[in-house]
């Protein structure tokens, strides 16, 4: 009975937060799944309580379960994984020469030059070139926004410098 009371209190305390987080992840496209996912979340919580688990941070736990369950529901219905390149193909990006180099030569040169960068700058530049903004790069790697901005800037500058130098050698 105590567990049931605990569960009831958790449901009441977190309903709004859980519901809005699930709704946000599902988006309009999958909003019909809201009741299913919500039910799944609270059943999971109830399962934990029934097992005698003591939830040290119950709100955080339920919130994370809600995000995971909602994302899993969307992924179940989402198309298969696409690589960024396939995405690029979908956009029909025209093949453009990097200062007169052939595409294969551009890629080879870029790979070579990326390997010359310090590891953190390389990560920052990779994420930036994949289309992430500096705040997103910061969130990805657990950096502050200013550190991410700095590493992207330094990385891109180094990249340009190396590219110019290595092309000169070629």
């Amino acid at each position, binding site marked *: 009975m105590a567990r049931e009371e605990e569960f009831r209190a958790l449901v*009441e305390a977190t309903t709004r937060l859980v*519901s809005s987080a699930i709704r*946000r992840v599902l988006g309009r496209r999958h909003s019909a799944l809201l009741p299913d996912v919500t039910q799944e979340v609270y059943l999971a919580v109830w399962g934990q309580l029934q097992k005698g688990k003591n939830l040290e941070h119950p709100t*955080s736990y339920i919130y994370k379960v809600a995000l995971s369950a909602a994302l899993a529901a969307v*992924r179940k219905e989402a198309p298969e*994984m696409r690589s960024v390149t*396939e995405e*690029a193909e979908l956009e029909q990006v025209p093949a453009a020469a990097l200062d007169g180099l052939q*595409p294969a030569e551009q890629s080879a040169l870029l790979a070579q030059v990326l390997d010359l960068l310090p590891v953190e700058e390389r*990560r920052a530049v990779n994420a930036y070139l994949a289309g992430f903004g500096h705040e997103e790069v910061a969130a990805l790697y657990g950096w502050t926004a200013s550190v991410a901005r700095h590493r992207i800037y330094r990385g891109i500058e180094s990249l340009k410098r190396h590219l110019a130098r290595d092309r000169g050698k070629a």
Partner: protein
Amino acid sequence: MSGELRRAWRRLAAERRPGECPSSERLVDLVVGPLPDAERVRLAEHVTLCARCAADFRTLRETHAEAADGLRALGGERRAGWRLALVAAGLALLAAGVALVFGDRSPSASPDALRQVPTPTVSVSPPNEASLAEPPRELRWPAQRDARGYTLRLLDASGQVVWKAGPVAEARAELPADVRAKLAAGSYAWTVQVEGDEKERLGPFWFSVGRS
């Protein structure tokens, strides 16, 4: 320069397959934490290369940013015991939220009641997610007990209401010819507001029209 670099990088990324996608739980950990540094780097590098995980990461991140206030309001979880008791006592109003989520089917929100919540899959016409050659002539939904009427809204993919009907007495609505003529190829959603003692909404249900 960066446009050319991006294109070159995308070609390069094609050669570096991102591997198997992380689970939903791991992506949530990446956004919400905590996560060991090595695991964070591994996930971040995957997300950098995988368009699907990149999109999921962005959705989770935006959701987490929006939920920050709510989390803070319920925060201080190291003292969760007494705080939860206070919250539970003080937030009886949130029971209305439970009713919103579960309709009037599990107002007590007890575990047993939750288990008895029927699947929310509702039989409608045209079926949810139907692909149609032309706009439907009518929309049908299950009659609701004690409903005094129904208000139907048809929305386009941008969320704009393109047609509203009702309140109507029956659980169906015919699309007028001029409305059907306006529905270009694309996706549409429709919802039904049930008029009664307790407001309840059905849907959204989706269909797409394939004509050009």
